[in-house]
């Protein structure tokens, strides 16, 4: 595999911007890393949820007496046993209507298949299994609504009182109607994307215990240790009495952003005073944990005769499932990104999220920036075709430039290297492969995207980090990041090593502990490198100043004569080793540690009509290209070769960047071609892993990555976030490739055989 690196300036860094193997991988490879599920405590109990087998029902009766007779069963909890059973909702809803809470354990009714109803605590997993069937819950089945558009029609069964509209957003920029009336080109399209699951390999897992301070400790696989406050509320304790630790995760992708096992572990620890372990099964995870929102998108796009975009009129409906979770925010991201990386002065978007009795939707890598790519990339191709111009040229001509406003109002402040990304993938994709038989067609696809990184401005996001020196000259970083597997911790070590001129190996990072590491926020929204990276950078810079100051105090040299260098501080008299520098600091009353908090730019909350100068910190742009082969007899689509390019500002670790991009591409290929959760009137039929087809090594093409570095991100060393952006363009890239192969374009995901065969028929090239 080759790799393109283009950079505005030559790198002058030693550790940062170098492809260094990640520090965590070494122990992972030796099998030594202890994930949350790898911790057992003598005397621990086990816990398991009893979940609703139906998607909509009134709970008529609950009885745990038979279950409590099972030897080894210690407790069975219902909603009434939870000190605060309501989980406060933290998402954006419609104005003037309070959002309904979700429940730790459902009491009166259930609204989706798999909703937790009871918690069993027992001495062994076997006792749990035996007791599960004996917890008697009587349901009075209620009508189900499982289609979001139907849910919004009057007279539909109400999932929550007051109607099924959870939230809606609008953009209304320019004069859309006039633009359409005058435009020579108008193209229309409808697009649809399905429900998908995160399918990380490490299931939802955790263990909890009570410590000597009376604190409930929870070690869990979570992207958000700061749920400790929410957990404390649920169990009725002060915030300081719950501690959450996140050891290295076996993947998250947004699926461990909402709480999973944590509140149940806390309740069981509180009830029993004993250590409690909880592991969800794959079936539970697939059936009941939050998913990516399915959407229906209707686009009308107007353009000038030369393909210049004039207007978009966009209607989007998303299925939020049974509870709000993060649906309002995901819908906001769908809305913000609906017009893609292209300038357009007249834009109307109306997006709505509806409650249904399906599994709740919530965060998933891409977070609403993903779904509309399928639509806006198809629309720009249609515009180019109608204008009789090259699709690549039309993209480049319409691409944002610095100073442009996105339709939601915010100005683009940093470089837009979309044209460079397009050139990079078209150059790297290489010659068109020959089809493997006369029945096969090969096609080339191209798609671009934009994805914000960092949280929305009114979250007032911050991240703190502590950096200090040991007396032997070793460097310690303390930062509350959860590492979901993307190399978050290793990048922080790189940054500290760079600033302090020490080898990576002499940096130790303590991370992911709500009690003992400075809080750094959740590992979501492509924010950790940006936020925690900036915090570590500034703490390390402060420590560097302290080290120089200590030497200055003792030697009498002015600080301006001193520089930190490999091995210590360079003075006119030679290098003072770091351990001695530390001693000098301590002898002269200079601290050898610093804690810094990085604050993201803030802004006012947007209103339902989204129009704001500041919504997100910044954006990442990219382009993908792929060859696919379509079997015109079976409708099977096989990706043959894939190239992805993103401007990452500056790659802190090119190896990690490449890994993020390649991994996202394969997740995106699964989204495009095979993955879906299937419902039958709210009943989730995809309960086993073999039914959920994530791509295997044999299904995947060779993936080449082009890392572009404009040097203009707002992260440390001008990095941009890259965790989420590369999943965006995949489905549109493959749809475009199928169109090139057979003459018609799939508009519904996943591109199942029947969809592709319909394209083959429509394209008339079989």
């Amino acid at each position: 595999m080759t790799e393109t690196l283009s950079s505005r300036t030559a790198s002058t860094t030693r550790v940062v911007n170098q492809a260094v193997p990640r520090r965590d991988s070494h122990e992972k490879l030796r099998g030594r890393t202890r994930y949350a599920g790898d911790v057992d405590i003598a005397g621990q109990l086990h816990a398991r949820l009893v979940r609703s087998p139906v998607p909509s029902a009134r709970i008529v009766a609950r009885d745990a007496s038979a279950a409590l007779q099972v030897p080894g069963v210690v407790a069975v909890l219902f909603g009434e046993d939870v000190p605060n059973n309501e989980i406060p909702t933290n998402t954006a809803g419609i104005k003037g209507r309070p959002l309904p809470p979700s429940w730790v354990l459902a009491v009166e009714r259930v609204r989706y298949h798999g909703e937790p109803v009871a918690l069993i605590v027992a001495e062994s997993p076997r006792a749990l299994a035996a007791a599960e069937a004996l917890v008697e819950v009587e349901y009075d089945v209620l009508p189900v609504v499982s289609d979001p558009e139907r849910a919004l029609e009057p007279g539909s069964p109400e999932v929550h009182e007051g109607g099924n509209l959870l939230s809606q957003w609008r953009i209304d920029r320019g004069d859309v109607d006039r633009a359409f009336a005058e435009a020579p080109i108008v193209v229309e399209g409808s697009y649809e994307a399905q429900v998908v699951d995160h399918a990380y390999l490490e299931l939802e897992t955790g263990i909890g215990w009570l410590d000597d301070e009376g604190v409930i400790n929870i070690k869990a696989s979570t992207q958000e240790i700061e749920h400790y406050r929410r957990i404390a509320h649920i169990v009725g304790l002060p915030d300081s009495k719950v501690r959450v630790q996140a050891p290295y995760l076996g993947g998250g992708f947004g699926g461990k952003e909402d709480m999973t096992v944590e509140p149940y572990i806390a309740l069981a620890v509180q009830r029993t005073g004993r250590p409690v372990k909880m592991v969800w099964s794959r079936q539970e995870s697939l059936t009941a944990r939050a998913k990516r929102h399915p959407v229906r998108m209707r686009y009308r796009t107007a353009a000038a005769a030369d393909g210049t975009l004039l207007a978009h009129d966009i209607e989007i409906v998303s299925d939020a499932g049974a509870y709000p979770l993060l649906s309002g925010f995901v819908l906001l991201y769908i809305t913000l990104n609906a017009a893609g990386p292209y300038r357009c002065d007249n834009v109307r978007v109306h997006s709505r999220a509806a409650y249904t009795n399906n599994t709740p939707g919530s965060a998933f890598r891409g977070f609403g920036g993903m779904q509309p790519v399928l639509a806006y990339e198809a629309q720009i191709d249609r515009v180019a075709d109608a204008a009789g111009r090259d699709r690549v040229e039309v993209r480049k001509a319409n691409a944002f430039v610095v100073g442009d406003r996105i339709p939601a109002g915010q100005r683009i402040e940093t470089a837009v290297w979309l044209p460079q990304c397009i050139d990079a993938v078209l150059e790297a994709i290489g010659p068109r492969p020959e089809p493997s038989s006369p029945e096969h067609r090969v096609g080339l696809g191209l798609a671009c995207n934009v994805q914000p990184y960092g949280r929305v401005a009114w979250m007032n996001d911050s991240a703190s980090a502590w950096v200090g020196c040991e007396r032997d000259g070793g460097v310690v970083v303390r930062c509350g990041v959860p590492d979901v597997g993307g190399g978050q911790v290793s990048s922080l070590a790189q940054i500290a090593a760079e600033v302090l001129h020490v080898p990576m190996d002499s940096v130790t990072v303590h991370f992911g502990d709500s009690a003992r590491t400075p809080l750094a926020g959740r590992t979501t929204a492509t924010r950790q490198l940006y936020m925690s990276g900036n915090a570590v950078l500034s703490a390390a810079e402060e420590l560097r100043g302290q080290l120089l100051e200590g030497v200055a105090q003792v030697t009498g040299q002015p600080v301006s004569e001193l520089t930190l260098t490999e091995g210590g501080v360079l003075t006119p008299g030679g290098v003072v080793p770091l351990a001695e520098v530390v001693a000098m600091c301590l002898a002269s009353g200079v601290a050898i540690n610093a804690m810094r908090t990085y604050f993201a730019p803030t802004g006012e909350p947007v209103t339902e009509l989204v129009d704001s100068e500041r919504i997100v910190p910044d954006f990442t742009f990219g382009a993908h290209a792929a060859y696919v082969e379509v079997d015109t007899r079976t409708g099977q689509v096989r990706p043959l070769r894939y190239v992805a390019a993103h401007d990452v500002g500056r790659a802190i670790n090119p190896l990690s960047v490449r890994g993020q991009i390649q991994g996202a591409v394969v997740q995106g290929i699964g989204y495009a071609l095979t993955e879906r959760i299937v419902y039958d009137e709210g009943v989730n039929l995809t309960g086993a892993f073999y039914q959920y087809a994530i791509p295997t090594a044999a299904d995947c093409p060779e993936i080449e990555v082009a890392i572009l570095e404009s040097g203009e991100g707002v992260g440390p060393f001008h990095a941009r976030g890259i965790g989420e952006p590369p999943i965006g363009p995949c489905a549109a890239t493959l749809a475009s490739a199928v169109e090139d192969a057979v003459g018609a374009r799939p508009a519904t995901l996943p591109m199942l055989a029947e969809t592709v065969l319909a394209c083959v028929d429509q394209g008339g090239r079989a």
Partner: protein
Amino acid sequence: MTGGMGTAETTITLNGAKVTGQAPADTTLVRWLREQAHAYEVKEGCNEGTCGTCTVLVDGRAATGCTTLAVQVDGATVETSASLADGEELSPLQAKIWENGAAQCGFCTQGMLMSAVELLRSGVEVTPAVVREHLHGNLCRCTGYQAIVDAVVDAAAEGATR
């Protein structure tokens, strides 16, 4: 508590050492390894034979530990990913995976390594296509497989068998 099955004594040669455990006869190999032998490097991702995370070598052949009962392999030799490194020093295959950034969350890695070792030992000519085919039972949600395939091909080119 054992579903009427009774417990069974099982002895396995695990990474060169004999381990004997008492567990219910329906205990899967992956659970037995973790609970009886504290071989926490063996992970479970689905418990239904789909993901390959729990892959270990049983008498040299890759097997999914969640679809194998411990009693079935009584007396057998089992190798896990913990057997590959030489103390702190990674095995040649592990070193290639490390250098290529092919272990991200590292969860699939434990099973992936053992499937790859099976391939490296087989003497089959190792090409990218062969690696992809051989590893198709080991799902990875992080890496996109490319770095893993590259690492195994590199390791094979250097004659690595572990």
